[in-house]
């Protein structure tokens, strides 16, 4: 019944029932604005109850106001069947075996009428139908671990994913690709960097900034780049593989602990912060940009640490922040707080007593910088030294989100704050670096002649 009138509610539903016209039926509709004819489409549940959606013969959709309908007649029925062309994925023993884990991000997809959302294609056969180039790169197998939106990825998913990766590595896989929504990809990348250590193979996270239901999508190329990286890269670390420029040119391999999504919609949204990426990836070539990475190994050994304490939070400081924010967090029983402070790592004085109270309550408090680039330096000003005496620990140049994940992971292993501190301040996967290279901070400013020259010369 509900399927017969998919997505319609209120008056719209009534009128469909009244004239016995079903979704997917071909109908003639007489209205006060004239006659319309086409296929009745399901309606997105978020749209109003005052209109019907009609697909015309020309392929266009239109809406018809319920109030204008005089008469409706169903004369045919034509339900759409989505099918992504599925072909058997060709395998060969010469090609590396790559496992693709699905978490809910889209790679190839189709549309869902009900929500207007995009439904991913995922089986190797479906992917081969959509991106046949994959067959030249690897033998692909896929596993959908869960289907959640990027923003719903959390500790449960991190640990599940880490364990699944561990199993694949023990079985001897040559590389792992993880499809992931882009919004929180850098959180998951950080989590996996801590939970999966000493991997013998690349673990490559990938997503798309333009959904794959459009011809200009970056999804197919991202998939090609990421499987290429998983198959061929000598870098056995947790990586994020996304567009370097917005052009269809090459991808960058970013360390899971230093990468951040820096634009809400650009294809080239992902950037390594405070350092340089590990490598460039083209369809047929991987160009390392540095050499201090973990190299690929032949063994099947890996360390999995699937721990996470959920009572950890992050506080983004702003002038006039009231101390009761910190108090509230402490009272609610949080065990760890990451502060994103201003400048070199500051908060205002009125917060100090609250920080003191947090320390007494046994809450681990770490300082990071909201400037994203640069180190926390709490010794430069007296206020910083004051804060340290209140138990706030500078987290070097760890990115705030990375510090948040690391603290959750550390507290998941131990309640001993000294041990937590040791874990936090021991660099893992480049989350803390010894210094910042001069080219680790490059936010070029448009308009400046030499920058404009550069932009004109190289594809953006």
């Amino acid at each position: 019944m509900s399927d017969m009138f998919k997505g319609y509610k209120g008056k719209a539903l009534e009128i469909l029932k009244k004239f016995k016209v079903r979704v997917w039926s071909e109908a003639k509709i007489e209205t006060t604005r004239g006659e319309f004819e086409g296929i009745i489409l399901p309606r997105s549940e978020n749209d109003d109850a005052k209109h019907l959606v009609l697909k015309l013969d020309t392929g266009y959709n239109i809406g018809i106001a319920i109030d204008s309908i005089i008469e409706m007649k169903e004369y045919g029925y034509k339900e759409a069947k989505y099918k992504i062309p599925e072909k058997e994925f060709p395998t060969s023993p010469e090609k590396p075996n790559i496992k693709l884990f699905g978490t809910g991000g889209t790679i190839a997809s189709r549309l869902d009428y009900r929500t207007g959302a995009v439904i991913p294609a995922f089986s190797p056969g479906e992917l081969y139908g959509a991106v046949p180039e994959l067959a030249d790169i690897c033998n692909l197998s896929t596993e959908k671990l869960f289907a959640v939106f990027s923003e719903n990825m959390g500790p449960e998913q991190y640990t599940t994913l880490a364990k699944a990766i561990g199993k694949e590595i023990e079985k001897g896989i040559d590389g792992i690709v993880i499809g992931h929504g882009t919004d929180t990809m850098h959180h998951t990348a950080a989590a996996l960097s801590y939970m999966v250590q000493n991997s013998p193979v690349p673990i490559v996270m990938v997503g798309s900034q333009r959904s794959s239901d459009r011809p200009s999508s970056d999804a197919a190329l991202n998939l090609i780049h990421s499987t290429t990286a998983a198959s061929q890269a000598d870098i056995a670390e947790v990586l994020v593989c996304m567009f370097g420029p917005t052009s269809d040119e090459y991808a960058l391999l970013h360390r899971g602990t230093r990468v951040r999504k820096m634009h809400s919609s650009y294809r080239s949204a992902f950037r390594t912060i405070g350092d340089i990426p590990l490598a460039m990836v083209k369809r047929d070539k991987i160009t390392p940009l540095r050499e201090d990475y973990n190299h690929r190994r032949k063994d099947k050994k890996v360390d999995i640490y699937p721990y996470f304490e959920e009572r950890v939070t992050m506080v983004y400081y702003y002038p006039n922040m009231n101390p009761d924010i910190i108090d509230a967090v402490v009272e609610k029983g949080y065990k760890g707080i990451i502060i994103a402070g201003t400048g070199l790592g500051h908060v205002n004085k009125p917060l100090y007593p609250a920080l003191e109270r947090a320390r007494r309550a046994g809450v681990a408090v770490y300082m990071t910088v909201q400037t994203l680039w640069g180190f926390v330096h709490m010794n430069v000003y007296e206020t910083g030294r004051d804060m340290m005496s209140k138990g706030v620990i500078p987290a070097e140049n760890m990115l705030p989100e990375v510090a948040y994940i690391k603290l959750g992971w550390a507290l998941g292993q131990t309640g001993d704050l000294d041990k937590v501190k040791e874990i936090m301040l021991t660099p893992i996967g480049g989350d803390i670096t010894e210094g910042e290279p001069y080219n680790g901070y490059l936010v070029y400013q448009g308009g400046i002649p030499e920058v404009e020259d550069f932009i004109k010369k190289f594809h953006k």
Partner: protein
Amino acid sequence: MKNNFSPEHNYINTKKITGYVEKKEATRETYSDLGFKCGHEIHQQLKTKKKLFCRCPAGIYHDPDDFNAEILRHMRPTLSELGEYDGTALMEFKTKKNITYRINNQTACTYDIDDTPPFPLNREALDIAIEVALLLKTNVVGELHITRKQYLDGSIPTGFQRTAIVGIEGEIPLKNKKVRIIQLSIEEESCREVSDIGHERIYTTDRLGIPLIETVTYPDLLTPDEAAEAAHYIRFLTRSTGKVQTGIGAAREDVNVSIDGGTRVEIKGVAHIARIPLLTHNEAFRQKALLEIKKTLNERFPNPAKWKMTHKPVSPNHIIEIPTFIDKKKANRYHWVAVNLPGFKGILSFFTQPGKSFANELSDRLKVIACIEKPNMIHSEPWYMNKKGNTPANLRQEEGFNQALNGHGVDFAAVRKLFKSGDNDAQLILWGPEDDIATAIETIEERCKWAFEGVPNETRKSIADGTTIFERVLPGPNRMYPDTDSPPIPIEEDHIQGIRKILPREVSDCMKQMKKWQIPGDTFCYLLKRNLFPLVEKIVEDFNQSPKFIGSLIGHHLKYIEGQITPSSPFTYDRIYHLVDFIIKKKLKRDILKQMLPVVYQYPNMDFESVLTTIEYKPKSEEDILDSIPVLKEKFSDISNSENESAMIRWVMGQLRPPALGNMRLSELHTKVAAGNGGNDE
């Protein structure tokens, strides 16, 4: 037959078989015999401040070389809403183009290059579209649904055009009939193409995103001239709103043509309505020719499924010499393939369009689908003459292909031997970069197989000479799917009524009124195209002027001036209203308008008094003018031996016209000069 076959004769003969007649010799019957049917898709840019889905300015153009950045993209087909891949989509994917977009910061933002989702639709544009929808008498939709129409040629960086239906099922009146309208849609403009060579296509993004409306008619137009009439009418109608862009490229037509037994073929991007008649005429006969080819082939192969072409790689130095028109360096990198087409003798040189034969259909597709630049093939039926027996110059220059037909050093006997070809076979040799060869062979085979079925569905590009070339496979409704980035927009009844109140007068009404006013018919097109009817009407009503005079002043006189003079700054037509106002207030006679108009047009900022000075106008009373008649007549007698009375009147009028202009009606003066002749005794 074997030895006597002449491609030239075959071309001429097949042109006869096709029944081709020149456009000027064709009658209504010619077209009804063919079953000619034509419909329009007329695109018109709207005059809005901003683009349709972002806030970049609309209507600013840059030189293609004036850009700040370039972005490289590729297009990949996706599934349609109904879960199918579109035919064009797959073909275009085959072509594997690198698409470069040139961006100028003034006219493009991250939306334009698909790095940001759309901003809410421009309401100014929507209101203009609703206005046109009402003028077309369409049923306006209750809710606007933004739909994505896939374009894999890269002309839009997203890979689809955001478009939405505003109204369906309308009509426009022509002289002798009503033409039905399928729909009016609002959509975003595409990029301008800078170049397309091999696998590299370059676009500039200044035009991209300008609001556009598209009017689609039913195929109700039954002759090429009717097609032009309808195109004019729709142009007049959209212009009558005063809210559309004018100028080069602001309006473009896609013309759909079919004949009985043929297929709907779309001729894209016709910029001048005047070209529509010849283009549609030629397309109708191209389809007729393809149907004749179909007939011939089906006679030769009762079971077309059994037809099979064969191909073999050839070494240019063994089988053929490299044709002289090909760059030797490139030639060495190319792969060369000979193809045998069983039973295709007489088909390759079969007439398709004036100056073109079936072989062009193959070569065009090699260029578009396999991305192999022309010349890209040579064949066994070279012909290179028009009906007068000369090689048309345009063929020699435009199409290296036809030069190739001279067959420099090509020994097709050797090719025939290679395939052990039959007498009725035809052969061709194609060449190109290695990666494109497989597609090239497929393309030839596909097109030849189509020849058995008749007219392939395709879009064709118009050429200035009235012929067309293949552009791409005609896309179907499968390339449409909803835009998940944009919610539907309700169009309320009150809103429509508000727009209805400000609708301009209907074009057909304007025409009727002008006829009634006895404004010369040859001014209508000019007046309506520039939306000048309201101006004529206003002058006529406000100043009680003769419509015939004003209509002709603008429609003949100003039109002529526009062709002769370039204004020093932009000229606006309402200057004419103020000009008429000026001479009436000054009590000048209207004849002076014609004298003033060129100056007014050339210097739009000059005040009218200065215009009078420029034309050396001096106020003079009628008496003063008339007083000088006798003196002038005497003078005429002195300087001329002629006794001819009308010569005398002409001479006197010539002397008096300049001082009389504006001071006295010239017709009146003429009467006086003529009447006064010999009237000294008055």
